[in-house]
């Protein structure tokens, strides 16, 4: 603490509150004193003059009667006496008494100013005996010095009194200021000098100031300190956090694998990270004073103008812009980068650069893969279509050119894959590829569409004869034997040809036309080529029409079963029937199976149709069973139904549903169907047979007629093809052949059904040869279910006739 006198002297600083307020109080007091004294002087002067007048008047009153006598009697002596008396009064300077005749007395104080005229007091003197009669007058000159002296005295007194009072007030004000304001403020100021608010130090409220403005000030300062320290603490925390963040970001920046950089609107690089430096092989340090500014354009872009455009785009919009840009660095063959630029305000752009060379390579590979066939290295369907589109567009642009599209499909290639295995097939395809390539020119395109299907574009070739020659060369080339594991394999191909622009204008129709032509070539035996012909399109159209007809036929239950009686030749009785499908077409009438079954097989509709027919057949068997007729019914099964289209489980379920014994239902399969996929067929036949169904081998004699298969498959019955039976003549070949089949079947323990019995001679011959069953027009054509009863009756009647 400072000694009090020091504190006090500090309070009297020239700029101090105390000195200023004291001076102000003194000045105000002086002003007030001057005004007060002036007023007092004025008032006192008036009052003094008044008092003087009053006194003189009173004086005159006392001498008036004497003076009246003196004036009345013109008594100078008396008048002089009165004058002397008046002059003895200090207020009176001079006295002059006159009557209308003479001056009675004229006395004045010694040394008085003769010229004194102001403040003269005049009184008229009347006769003592007649109040209305003036007998003289007296003029009294008051002494101004006396009055002034009195005024001075009074003013002096007032001044002294005022000085005292003002002095006291000033003193009191100063003391109050000192005690109540200056000292507490000084104390607060001293305390504030040494105070450290961050350590929680606060101002103490001065004594007895808890409720004063000083106390309020202290509270306010303390509150302010609180807020400031709070803000400081927050600030410090934020700064700390900021430091940490900055370190963190710096680490990320430095260690990022992507190139990060900052450029201004002209493209000048402001800063970059090590990854960026490494990518572009530039200095690691951002440009300092020593380094010249580096523009992003100066980096080894393959096309710097693209970079410029990217910068301009980024500056124009707030969203990030990105582009893949190629860079050229010596020693690196090609390198792709992906650049992302984003405006960060202040005309600055922040950028990220990735090395995307690997991505680009993979992308190119993938793109190549997508249009390439891995086995042969040829273009695949996509590649072919791209090429075709390119040619079509080229033609559209130049109106010159044109090309021929050849679709080459190996005939019966499936046989190779199934019989010799996929590797053999693949090898053959590769050889085929080489042979085909050898037939083509450098402008031509060879592609592999599917397993054994190739496509060839003969560019700029539209003349039919030229194409014809090339197709012939190809046919010849494929006809050359292939050697698989040393064994020669002979193959041929079907070729469909479509010409652009004469056949079709767009890629899909060209491909379809070539395919149609190829199908046509194939269906006419293969090993040749066919040019597209609009008729082919028509046929395809018809087929499509038929297909939709088939679908609606299924919906409308237009398929029906016809039944052809089968006769037991041993008993000459009706043993049952073969169920044959017919299509009762609403406009075309009854359609034979040959007209729709191939397409139904191709489209898979046959599965659905045959399931319906199975249902119908079982219903018929049930009817017969209910009528007490012990007929069997045979149903044709196509290749598409084996093994899943008509699964053993389904068969079992259906017959169970109708309550029919399985041995009443026979399933007829051709050799071709059986041999198509031997393993699957065998499994199916075994399963069906095990369930109690009987299996007939249909059309026996037209195919391989392999005995080993006959032994392998659990077949119950052989059906001799009607062509053999129909042509049976006495001692003819066919006769012998049928007999041989019957004999062989019998020796294998199989029942024989002869189809196509049309003549009585057939019947007799078959009977002779020991054939078990027969069917044919001799007995009855296939008939609808409702006619079957009548037919059965007629057949029974026919058979009951004695043989001629």
């Amino acid at each position, binding site marked *: 603490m400072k000694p009090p006198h020091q504190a006090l002297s500090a309070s009297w600083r020239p700029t101090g509150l105390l000195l200023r307020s004291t001076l102000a109080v003194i000045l105000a007091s002086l002003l007030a004193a001057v005004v007060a004294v002036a007023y007092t002087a004025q008032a006192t002067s008036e009052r003094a003059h008044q008092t003087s007048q009053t006194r003189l008047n009173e004086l005159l009153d006392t001498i008036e009667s004497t003076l009246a*006598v003196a004036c009345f*009697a013109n*008594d*100078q002596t*008396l008048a002089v006496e009165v004058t002397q008396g008046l002059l003895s009064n200090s207020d009176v300077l001079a006295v002059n008494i006159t009557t209308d005749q003479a001056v009675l007395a004229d006395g004045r104080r010694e040394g008085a100013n003769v010229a004194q005229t102001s403040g003269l007091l005049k009184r008229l003197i009347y006769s*003592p005996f007649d109040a209305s009669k003036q007998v003289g007058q007296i003029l009294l000159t008051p002494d101004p010095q006396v009055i002034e002296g009195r005024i001075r005295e009074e003013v002096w007194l007032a001044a002294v009194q005022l000085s005292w009072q003002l002095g006291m007030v000033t003193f009191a004000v100063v003391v109050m200021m000192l005690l109540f304001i200056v000292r507490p403020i000084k104390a607060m100021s001293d305390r504030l000098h040494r105070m450290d608010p961050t350590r929680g130090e606060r101002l103490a409220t001065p004594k007895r100031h808890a409720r004063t403005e000083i106390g309020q000030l202290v509270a306010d300062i303390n509150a302010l300190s609180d807020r400031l320290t709070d803000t400081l603490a927050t600030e410090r925390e934020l700064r700390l956090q900021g430091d940490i963040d900055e370190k963190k970001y710096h680490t990320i920046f430095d260690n990022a694998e992507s190139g990060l950089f900052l450029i201004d609107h002209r493209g000048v690089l402001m800063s970059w990270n090590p990854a960026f430096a490494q990518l572009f092989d530039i200095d690691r340090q951002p440009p300092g004073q020593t380094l010249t500014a580096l523009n992003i354009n100066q980096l080894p872009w393959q096309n710097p103008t693209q970079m410029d455009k990217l910068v301009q785009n980024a500056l124009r919009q707030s969203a990030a812009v990105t582009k893949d840009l190629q860079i050229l660095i010596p020693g690196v063959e090609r390198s792709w980068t992906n650049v992302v630029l984003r405006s960060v305000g202040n005309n600055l752009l922040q950028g990220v650069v990735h090395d995307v060379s690997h991505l680009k390579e993979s992308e190119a590979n993938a793109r190549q893969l997508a249009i390439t066939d891995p086995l042969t290295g040829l273009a695949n369907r996509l590649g072919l279509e791209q090429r075709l589109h390119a040619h079509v567009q080229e033609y559209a642009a130049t109106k010159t050119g044109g090309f021929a599209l050849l679709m080459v499909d190996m005939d019966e290639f499936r046989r190779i894959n199934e019989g010799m295995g996929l590797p053999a097939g693949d090898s053959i395809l590769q050889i085929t590829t080489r042979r085909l390539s050898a037939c083509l020119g450098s402008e031509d395109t060879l592609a592999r569409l599917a397993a054994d299907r190739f496509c060839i574009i003969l560019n700029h070739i539209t003349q039919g004869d030229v194409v014809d020659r090339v197709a012939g060369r190809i046919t010849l080339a494929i006809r050359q034997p292939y050697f698989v594991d040393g064994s020669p394999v002979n193959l041929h191909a079907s070729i469909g040809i479509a010409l652009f622009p004469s056949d079709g204008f767009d890629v899909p129709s060209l491909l379809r036309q070539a395919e149609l032509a190829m199908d046509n070539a194939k269906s006419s035996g293969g090993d040749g080529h066919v040019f597209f012909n609009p008729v082919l399109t028509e046929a395809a159209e018809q087929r499509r029409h038929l297909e939709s007809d088939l679908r609606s036929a299924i919906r409308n239950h237009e398929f029906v079963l016809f039944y052809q009686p089968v006769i037991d030749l041993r008993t000459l009785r009706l043993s049952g029937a073969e169920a044959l499908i017919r299509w009762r077409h609403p406009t075309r009438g009854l359609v034979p199976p040959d007209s729709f079954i191939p397409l139904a097989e191709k489209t898979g509709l046959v599965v659905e149709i045959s399931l319906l027919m199975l249902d119908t057949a079982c219903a018929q068997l049930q009817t017969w069973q209910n009528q007490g007729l012990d007929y069997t019914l045979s149903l044709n099964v196509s290749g598409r139904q084996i093994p899943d289209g008509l699964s053993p489980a389904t068969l079992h379920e259906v017959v169970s549903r109708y309550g029919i014994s399985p041995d009443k239902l026979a399933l007829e399969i051709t050799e071709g169907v059986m041999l198509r996929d031997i393993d699957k067929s065998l499994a199916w036949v075994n399963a069906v047979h095990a369930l109690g169904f009987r299996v007939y081998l249909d059309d026996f004699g037209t195919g391989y007629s392999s005995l080993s298969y006959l032994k392998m498959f659990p077949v119950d019955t052989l059906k001799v093809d009607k062509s053999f039976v129909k042509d049976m003549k006495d001692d003819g070949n066919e006769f012998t052949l049928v007999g041989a089949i019957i004999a062989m079947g019998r020796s294998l323990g199989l029942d024989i059904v002869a189809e196509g019995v049309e003549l009585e001679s057939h019947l007799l011959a078959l009977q002779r040869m020991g054939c078990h069953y027969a069917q044919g027009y001799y007995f009855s054509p296939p008939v609808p279910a409702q006619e079957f009863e009548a037919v059965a009756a007629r057949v029974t009647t026919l058979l009951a006739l004695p043989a001629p």
Partner: protein
Amino acid sequence: MKVLLSTLFLVLSGLGSTARAEPVVVVSAASSLRQLSQDEVVNIFLGRYRRLPNGDTALPIDQPESSPVRADFYRRLVNKDLNEINAYWSRLIFSGRTSPPLQASSAADVMVWLLGQPGGVAYVDRTQVDKRLRIVMEFAR
């Protein structure tokens, strides 16, 4: 009422006139002075002037102190009683500039001095006026 009041007034004045003397200012019949105003009488008797209008020096003469006409005279002249008149004179006498009227010791003395002095002026009761005397001023009734 009015009749009553006037009757009363007459009675009173009648009483007065009978009880008091009626002073008049007189000079010697031989004098050339014929008339004096009341102011002139005041000036002469109270010492202001001592000159008569005819140029003679006036010689005012007072009746004896005890004479009732003297008191009446001064009462009528300046409405003062004799004490007041005496007080007045006492102030003037000291200076010596003027003097009070001649003091007669009897009515007879008044007549002697009046007739004997040329400027003599006196007041007498009207009843005392004879041929030797001339009234120069009468008080209004």
